């Protein structure tokens, strides 16, 4: 790893997935992804005829590393389909490493636009999403029986 590589933080890990509407593949869904670390950055993609999509990782050089601060990145993906906006993904990334959203595994999601929003935490980072992916959520305080 070069020194330059070590200064790179992953603001949003590479994501691949499939979008469905009531279980059926949703083609031509416009997906707009936003990350906000020091400033908001947006990119977008569109699902193919089978509802598949991919987003590359969003990485950023960490400036002024000698001034330590908490790593906190707002993440969002909105889906636009047949005139309706859906909040597909909202999260706050708290770890600069790749695939922290899925505890190191590749981030592969399945999202149904008619599903109920799910809320989990992964390593302390909250995610609200219409998607499911292969990850074990954090236990809640009730689970930990600390009260």
């Amino acid at each position: 790893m070069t020194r330059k590589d070590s200064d790179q933080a992953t603001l949003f890990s590479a994501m691949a997935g499939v979008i469905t509407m009531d279980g059926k593949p949703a083609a031509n869904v416009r997906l707009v992804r936003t990350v906000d670390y020091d400033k908001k950055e947006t990119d977008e993609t569109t699902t193919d005829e089978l509802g598949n999509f991919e987003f590359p990782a969003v990485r950023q050089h960490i400036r002024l590393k000698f001034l330590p601060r908490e790593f906190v990145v707002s993440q969002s993906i909105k889906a636009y389909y047949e005139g309706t906006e859906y909040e597909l993904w909202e999260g706050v990334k708290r770890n600069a490493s790749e695939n922290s959203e899925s505890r190191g595994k590749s981030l592969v999601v399945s999202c149904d636009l008619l599903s109920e929003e799910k809320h989990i935490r992964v390593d302390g980072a909250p995610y609200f999403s219409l998607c499911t992916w292969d990850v074990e959520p954090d236990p809640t305080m009730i689970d930990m029986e600390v009260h």
Partner: protein
Amino acid sequence: MTALNPKISSLLAKDVYALTRASSVNKAISDLNYQYGPLFNFNTQNLLRGRTGGPSIIKVRTGFGFTLIGQGKLKGEAVILFRGTQYLADWLSNVNVGTSSSIAGLPVHDGFNMAFIPVPLENAGFRAWVGC
């Protein structure tokens, strides 16, 4: 009365960063309820905002923390939860290392005091401080 234990306190101190960057106060409240529901009462008035940075032209107004009111086993407890350094602009507050007078008349870190002053802190009787 059950006092806040170190585990809850440390989790809250970590969580405040994500909570202040949630897309809406309602999302942050939802996350707090999900994680701590039986322990605290939350509402949309709980978000504290402050201004960090240097001279006014580069000050940044952001979510700065939460107030939490204990319930159930934590009834009678309250927490004022502040985040620490998250934005580069926060370092301008950090290096403002002089002291100024607090509401109580005691000397405090001026950078924190300047960020804290805009916070409308009207809840009385708080017993615990977490974070910062």
